[in-house]
Each structure stands twice: as C-alpha cells, then as structure tokens.
C-alpha cells in the first residue's frame, strides 16, 4: 500500500522585487528576495498572487529561470491582467506573494549524468535556462544542446549570456520570421535538422506554446527518442 507523505501546506510568502533586467522590448527578468525560501530544482515553477487594495486577487504560474535564486522572466501579454503589471508597474521593493516551488517532473537534477537536449519556443526558454545555469553551477559534465526558437533575434532572452562560449553547452538559434544577416539557416519552423546529430539516448525537455511543443515532440519521436525521456511543458 502506498503511504502518502503529507508535508505542510505550501505557504504563501511575501516576495519583494530586488532587481530587474530587461530581456527584450516586452520581457523582463524579475529577481525577488523571499525570506524563508526553501530552495528549488531547475525547471520548477511558482504561483504568484497579486492583491489589489480592495482585496481582489489574481494568480498565475511562472517558471523559475535560475536555479539558485527566485528569478522569473515575464513576457508581457498585451491584454494580460498580471504580466503587464509585473513587467511595467512593479517597482524595486514592492511586494507580491509567491508559493512554491511546484512541480517535480519537468526538472533537471545535476546528478542525472546523462546528456540533455533542451528545446525552447519563445518564452518557454525560462525553465530551460534554469537547467543551463544549474549545469554551470554544479560543474556538471553532462553535454547540453539548447535549441531555441524565436521569431526574430530581438526576441531572444538571455542573449548575452547565451552568446558566451561554454564548454559542453551548444546553443542553436532557430528564427522563424527574421534571421540576422548572413545567418546560414533561412527563417522557418523547427525541423529535424535543427535538433543536431547527437544520438537519441538523451533526456529531452521541451517547453513552449502548444503547437511548437507538439511538433518538437513529434520530431523527437521520429528520430527515435524514447517517449519516456521526453518531458514537455506547454503554455497557451
């Protein structure tokens, strides 16, 4: 008989905005101070709760984009209720409430040891970036390939950090609408060739909009990857 372990309720904690970085015209990385934060694994997410002065609340989930601190990268959705507040209004020192970390499936553990293929569509790169950073932090020798699809070069998050050479990490940008001048790959959707020629015995993490994740997972299956080692996370 399975005995369910019942830890305490995930508590809401007060998080204060400590630092922000601009990622693109419409996305911002927010770093929070969260007293009592228990730590988390790369790939986990948090629930964010905003409360208005009259008591009205709104909640959303955001992936953690760093393994060692509470950092969220928020893409502003034009008619959104929460994201425009987080990207444009929330100021240094302002509070929001957070609970987490949540999710134990879409996670990378530094002791896994196996090679990894990360496939990101748009802002789906956030939890995968936490994995790239966790690998670096742990000094892991696992080889990583990040295939990162955006519409244009201006939509790339963490651009400077991803440009820096890093042994064992291979970053491939896929542009679907506009590529930089002289870019060898014409703009277009992700194809099998973009996944690289590594053997299919890797752990795969795919995150992005539904259509993107569906097609990336299908490409992986067609290349012989084991469906049990393909983990997906979707939004929209």
């Amino acid at each position, binding site marked *: 008989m399975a005995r369910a372990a019942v830890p305490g309720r995930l508590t809401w904690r007060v998080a204060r905005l400590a630092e922000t970085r601009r990622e693109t015209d419409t996305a911002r990385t927010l770093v929070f101070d969260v007293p009592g934060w228990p730590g988390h694994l790369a790939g986990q997410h948090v629930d964010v709760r905003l409360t208005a002065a009259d008591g009205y609340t709104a909640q959303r989930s955001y992936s953690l984009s760093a393994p060692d601190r509470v950092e969220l990268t928020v893409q502003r959705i034009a008619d959104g209720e929460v994201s425009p507040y987080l990207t444009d209004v929330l100021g240094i020192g302002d509070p929001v409430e957070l609970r987490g970390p949540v999710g134990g*499936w879409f996670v990378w553990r530094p002791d896994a040891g196996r090679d990894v293929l990360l496939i990101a569509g748009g802002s789906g790169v956030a939890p995968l970036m936490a994995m790239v950073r966790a690998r670096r932090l742990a000094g892991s020798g696992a080889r990583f390939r990040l295939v990162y699809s955006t519409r244009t070069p201006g939509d790339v998050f963490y651009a400077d950090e991803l440009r820096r050479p890093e042994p064992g990490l291979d970053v491939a940008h896929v542009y679907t609408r506009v590529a930089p001048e002289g870019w060898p790959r014409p703009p277009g959707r992700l194809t099998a060739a973009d996944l690289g020629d590594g053997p299919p015995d890797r752990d795969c993490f795919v995150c992005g909009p539904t259509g993107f994740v569906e097609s990336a997972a299908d490409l992986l299956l067609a290349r012989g990857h084991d469906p049990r080692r393909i983990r997906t996370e979707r939004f929209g």
Partner: protein
Amino acid sequence: MGIVSPGFHGRRRESAVQLPPGQYLTEDFPVLSAGPTPRIPEEEWELTVATETGGQYRWTWRELLDLPFETPRVDIHCVTKWSKLGTDWQGVSLDVLLEDVETAADFALVSSYGGYTTNLPLEDLLDGQAWIVYRYDGEELAPEHGGPVRLLVPHLYFWKSAKWLRGIDLLTENEPGFWETAGYHDYGDPWREQRYQGD
C-alpha cells in the same frame, strides 16, 4: 486579505460568472501534458476495467460507440489557473460503463496510453458526474486533447480527467497517480482550491 501589491488593480470581469478561487477565464483551450502526445488508432484502442477481485471487462472502440451516449455541457478548471465555461462533449457516462461491473472497491486508479495515471474515489466517477468522451465541440477528440478517448470529471481539477484513457483499476486502497505522487493534491476540488498536498 493578502499583502497588497501597490498599483495592482486587476481586471474584473463584467460577467457575473463565479469561478473557483484563483482561476481566470479563458476562451481558447490550452493543452497540458507531461510528455509527447500518444497517437492511438481507434481500431487499436481498447478500454479495460479491472476489479479488486481480478475481474476484467473490455470495450473496443466500436463497442464504446454502441453504448448509449450523453452530451454534457460543463465548465472545466485546470490547476494551472485557467477555467473554460460551457464546454461541449459527447461520451458515455461511467454509470453506463460500470453498470454490470461487480465491485466493492472505493477507489479508482485511471491509466492512459503513454503511462500517465491519476486516482479518484470511485464515487466521484458515478451518479452522473463523469464520462468517457470521444467528441469535443462537435468534432472527434483531437490527440492533444486526449483523443481518441479521455476521461471527463468536470467537478475536479482537469488533471483528473485523464487523456488517452486506457484502463481503470478498481481498488480497495487509494493509490496516488502521476501528479499526486509529484506533490499535487490527492483529491483536487477546485472550489476548495485543493491544488497541492496539504491544501
């Protein structure tokens, strides 16, 4: 009341629709699943119900379609915060499916093609509360939404409505499924906001 975030006003909906706590309305139909979408040809699809005494009951796709169906219109609530109102389905009530199944079990562990599992009290599958559905919004159920056949248990968070339904094990002891083992709530009532263990 929670800690106020300065300058946050929110966007209240004008409609009088009441949503479970922490949920927001969506018009589209988000897809959430933990791995690649299994694609199961209808002619290969089969549903097995196994009882606590070893009894086995099976339905093929054709046999499922021959059962009397209902067309529930229900609201659905995902633990990732979206709710979708007035969704239209077609499928077979679990009351019909389990009518001749002899069991004294209190729990069901539902399993999917692809390996996903989720658990529910058996009573939550009966009395007009649950269906196994094969059509959505007048169309065949798309693979990414669980086609050819998924479970529909609208009064619980939607991770209980297992996609790509393959089997139901009737058990005398509760056995947590995939997300329940990973820290999500054992029962998952949206109106009591039972998202995670301990909620």
